[in-house]
């Protein structure tokens, strides 16, 4: 028996780019994160061939979860065709041999930056969100050691102070993205910079959401059928963006989260932020047989 017969043959890189120990680390921390919903788990974030802050956290989770049968979709601000999304999608496919898709319904693994797709995700789908700043308390408690103690004590009074300040200064809650939310009645998390529109989608969702911050080295998760409640005052209700009445200028779809497109004459047109849903709507209008899944919002109202 030789040493060579006991070891694996040399390969230029391991499957899915990350080495086995890195994947084990991530799997362990993901399991921990799922066990304590919303609680930030520190993990040994690895180098990936991408700059920190461009989705390295999400990419590591995706690389760990991927296998040759996983169908991958990557979203950047709702769009599948931005450079960042396209590059990550191509990279994932190249190192794993996994098929890729743009269609939310076909995807098994969805890595996303700043949006949750408009079509309702299923139990067998996993959503990976890229998180730039995982600490919701940072704005009210700059000292991270004390912030961790505050998480331990569930001492979240100051989060409401932030909302109080916004109402006093501007007459309404100005927090547009990363709206702090209570997960499972225990931990306050930042749901990554998704718009307020998307936060209610996480509440009692059927899919697993994993949020990962590569630079800050923190993983947290929202397991399926878990409560996610945005922080609000008892007498000031939560409001999503006023996009219910907007119509997509390209597809004609109405009542979804829109991107504003400034026009030459000073007015603005709107188009669906979830680009693939827009494309599918257009194709269906043209008579193509496409599957449009059920959406979280119908006519601008949450359907759950």
């Amino acid at each position, binding site marked *: 028996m030789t040493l060579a017969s006991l070891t694996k043959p040399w390969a230029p890189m391991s499957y899915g780019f990350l080495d086995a120990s890195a994947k084990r680390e991530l799997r362990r921390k993901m399991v921990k994160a799922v066990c304590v919903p919303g609680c930030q788990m520190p993990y040994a974030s690895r180098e990936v061939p991408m700059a920190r802050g461009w989705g390295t956290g999400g990419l590591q989770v995706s690389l760990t979860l991927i296998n040759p049968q996983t169908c991958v979709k990557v979203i950047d601000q709702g769009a599948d065709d931005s450079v960042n999304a396209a590059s990550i999608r191509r990279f994932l496919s190249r190192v794993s041999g996994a098929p890729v898709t743009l269609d939310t319904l076909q995807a098994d693994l969805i890595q996303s930056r700043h949006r949750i797709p408009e079509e309702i995700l299923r139990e067998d789908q996993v959503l990976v969100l890229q998180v730039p700043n995982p600490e919701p308390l940072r704005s009210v408690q700059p000292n991270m050691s004390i912030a961790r103690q505050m998480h331990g004590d569930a001492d979240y009074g100051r989060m409401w102070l932030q909302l109080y300040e916004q109402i*006093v200064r501007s007459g309404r809650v100005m927090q547009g993205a990363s709206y702090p939310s209570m997960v499972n009645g225990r931990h306050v998390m930042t749901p990554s910079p998704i718009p307020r529109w998307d936060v209610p989608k996480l509440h009692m969702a059927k899919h697993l959401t994993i949020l990962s911050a590569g630079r800050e080295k923190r993983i947290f998760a929202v397991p399926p059928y878990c409560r996610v409640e945005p922080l609000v005052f008892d*007498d000031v209700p939560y409001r999503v963006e006023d996009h219910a009445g907007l119509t997509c200028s390209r597809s004609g779809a109405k009542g979804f989260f829109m991107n504003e497109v400034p026009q030459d004459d000073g007015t603005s047109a709107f188009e669906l932020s979830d680009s693939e849903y827009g494309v599918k709507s257009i194709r269906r209008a043209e008579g193509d047989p496409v599957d449009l899944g059920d959406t979280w919002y119908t006519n601008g109202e949450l359907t759950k």
Partner: protein
Amino acid sequence: MTLTLDAPRIVTVDPLLELHGVNKSYGPVVALRNVHATVFPGEVLGIVGESGSGKSTLLRMMNLEETPDSGSYTLDLPDVDGNLFELDRFARRMLCATRIGIVYQNPHLGLLMKHSSSGNVAERLLVAGERRFAVLREKATDALAASEFPLERLDAPPIELSGGMQQRVQLAKAIALEPALLLLDEPTTGLDVSVQALVLDTLKRLQQDRKITMVIVSHDLGVIRTLADRVMVMRRGEVVEAGLADQIFQDPQHAYTQQLVHAKL
């Protein structure tokens, strides 16, 4: 005409606050040596002493910010019992937030400088669990009004306010939850004399209106004389003399107290 006198009564009020045999040292430096203190409900206790005499350490212990090497601390309040130094962090925080108010010498310690003044007061209420915006707003305004803060500057951040105003915000924050005990750590040091007088006026009025039990630490005998009913003189971590304010100021017994009183006069 016959003069009738009430029968002599024995005071049977239990002290609100009791510190017993408190010792604390920082390495070789002894900050407190076997300190006993009692404060009765509705009373103002003044603690005087030079810098480094341990008076601020004592106050921080009353606010449960520090634990001593040995000693006990009890507050005679419903649903508060036992030695408070042995409470866990969580219970300690709730007790401090709801029952004890503190005004620091340095407003930066007690206030969030970039949040609004009313927000600073509201924070106290939020920690105690209030989640209605309208109620927060109203109670914060009330507390600021009680500490004679100009209400047109309600939402100005403390960093834009003068020193006296900052102390008033701290005071409003401290009294927002109607605490059983109000701790004042050199509340007027660093303010000019006229502003000092105004802040002392406010404190005096609050004390009369609300009968708050106060502990005030100062090296300024004038401040203590204006406010305190009883005085404790500290030196090098020990209480050298304690008694009624008039008694201490008119007839100091201990050499150090005599020196202190004469230095003032």
